[in-house]
């Protein structure tokens, strides 16, 4: 198992509830810089809840445990501060914001991050050059420059747009919530190319997914199986292959055994 980078994210005995219902029931997870982790599990196992709790969604009530992100107490931080500190959530269903220009939002996001880091705002020309380069890399047409945030985008375009934002914001930790769902094979390759381009010794990626297929393109260092709000099993990439063959019931059964 590849590791050795410094600890980027440490989750200890995390429990959380949504609308009065306990969803996470004691999660322990450590992610080091340089690693890619995949979190798999059946529907309703708490995968998306974990992603939302990490990002600070207000309807998700943390009922116990601690989360340390880059040495700071993550649960004490506001969502925008978490983002500025380098935590990025790629949404499962990116929301449309009619009338708000896609590039305008991204520029505001980059500047908010730069401001928090004590850096000057990005120069408009530099920014345009940067975004054009990233869009080319993500094989997106320049028409995206003038459109509203996710307004009228197809499912695949929305996901590609999430990865574009990630590439511009260069987060320390990217949590990608079912970024592969609804993608055809070509789009999946492009999205994977984007994610892989961000991999380096200082960053980490968490892939929340149902399908082993994504992991053929983005090869994880660790795979975790989440069920009933707990991590039932962890392993390397071969765990995902085995899951594909034997299904989640196998993990649940082996746990009981």
């Amino acid at each position, binding site marked *: 198992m590849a590791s050795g980078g410094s600890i980027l994210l440490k989750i200890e005995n995390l429990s959380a509830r949504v609308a009065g219902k306990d969803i996470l029931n004691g999660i322990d997870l450590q992610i080091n810089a340089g690693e890619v982790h995949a979190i798999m599990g059946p529907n309703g196992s708490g995968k998306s809840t974990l992603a939302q709790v990490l*990002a*600070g*969604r*207000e*309807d*998700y009530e943390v009922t116990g445990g601690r989360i340390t992100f880059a040495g700071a107490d993550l*649960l*004490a931080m*506001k*969502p*925008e501060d*978490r*983002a*500025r500190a380098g935590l*990025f*959530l790629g*949404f499962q269903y*990116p*929301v449309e*914001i*009619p*009338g*708000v220009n896609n590039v*305008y*939002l*991204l520029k*505001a*996001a980059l500047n*908010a*991050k730069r401001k*928090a880091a004590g850096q000057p705002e990005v120069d408009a020309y530099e920014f345009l050059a940067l975004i054009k380069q990233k869009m080319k890399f993500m094989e997106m047409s320049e028409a995206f420059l003038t459109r*509203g*945030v996710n307004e009228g985008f197809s499912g695949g375009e929305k996901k590609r747009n999430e990865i574009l*934002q990630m590439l511009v*914001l260069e987060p320390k930790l990217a949590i990608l919530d079912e970024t592969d769902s609804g993608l055809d094979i070509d789009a999946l390759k492009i999205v994977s190319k984007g994610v892989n381009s961000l991999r380096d010794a200082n960053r980490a990626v968490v892939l929340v997914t149902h399908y082993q297929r994504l992991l053929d393109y983005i090869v994880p260092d660790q795979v975790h199986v989440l069920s009933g709000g707990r991590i039932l099993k962890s392993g390397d990439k071969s765990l995902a292959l085995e899951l594909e063959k034997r299904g989640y019931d196998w993990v649940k059964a082996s746990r009981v055994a």
Partner: protein
Amino acid sequence: MASKPSDVEALIGQKYRHGFVTDIESDSLPPGLDETVVAAISRKKNEPQFLLDWRLKAFRHWQTMHEPTWAHVHYKPIDYQDISYYSAPRAPVDAPKSLDEVDPKLLATYAKLGIPLHERARLAGVAVDAVFDSVSVATTFKDKLAKAGVIFCSFSDAVHNHPALIEQYLGTVVPAGDNFFAALNSAVFSDGSFVYVPRGVRCPMELSTYFRINAAKTGQFERTLIIAAEGATVSYLEGCTAPMRDENQLHAAVVELVALDDATIKYSTVQNWYPGDENGIGGIYNFVTKRGECRGRNAKISWTQVETGSAITWKYPSCVLKGEGSVGEFYSVAVANHHQQADTGTKMIHVGRNTKSTIVSKGISAGHAENTYRGQVKILPSADGARNFTQCDSLLMGGRCAAHTFPYMEVKNATATVEHEASTSKIGEDQLFYCLQRGISAEDAVNMIVSGFCKVVFKELPMEFAVEAQNLLSVSLEGSVG
């Protein structure tokens, strides 16, 4: 920790920036209203007999009328005898002949409001008429406009210098007895703006009037009349502010537009009267009648309004489309925050053949506010081939505000096409969280989402005012999330 839903509602705490009072000597009539007051106003303004007769007729009619109660607004009864119907800054001469004669305190007031009458007007190339309480204090660019043949002056000046035009057009779009507030205005109006753009002339600059209520316990009753002759084009903007006061102040204006054959009038409003404090104390009652008549063929009248102020807004800028092929448009953003109540919309009356109207209304409610869209589309039997498109969208911020939509349609011609679309959305918690997750502050996120919502209306505003409107919107919703 993550912000709570209640914070979303708290995101709307706003400071009114124009709430100062100018300490200036004024010449006011004591509160109260009867025929002698009407006559006194007319005498103070040295008006011709026809106008006095017109006022008195309106006053007598007003006395037989009742305040309308159909609007979705609630307020304590107004004591019309407790209002002063005339207040003018006391000037060394009867009226300032040039800016140099205007009281420096007045000029400072306008500078504070962001309208230095000297420089800004010159730089922006916008001709400004400023109305302070009841009288017009200065009109810039008179000469340049005169060269183009455009008359742009205070209403009082027009009464003296162009009485024939006043007599010909006054009250022909909004009759003196049209409604309770219009009748009151017709009786006691003190000043306002007058525009006449002659045949074939494209007005060389934006015309702008700035209204300011300063004195306490006064009402402002201005009257605007704009006439675009055959083939003429004019774009006109009004802006409004008032000091912060605990008592409510009444503003009952009348605006009449007349567009002859092939003429175009674009009328934009950025209304920022004092809305009252966050508990609903004080603020302006804005009961305004605005109507335009496309009297000629292919005439066009376009209303664009950004309404952020006033405790109560009661306002329905309308178009009567008489000329064949004439066009009426209404683009509106109405923001109601705290305890503000807005009942606004439009009327499109299709009389002529192939007339066309477009209505785009964007209502934003926050705090405890009530925001109502009330619109009427009326297609008369004569209006063959008439078309209307209406779109009403409401955005709610927090859980204690409300939005209402009352579209009335009356179609008496089978060849007409009428389309209506409506939507209500809560300011998306999802949209907000999406922005937060990208590192954008709650305040910036709300501004962004709201301006995106209003974009189709803002792009109808003249450019320099679009920026102002955008800023105003940010201030109005300041502190409403986060």
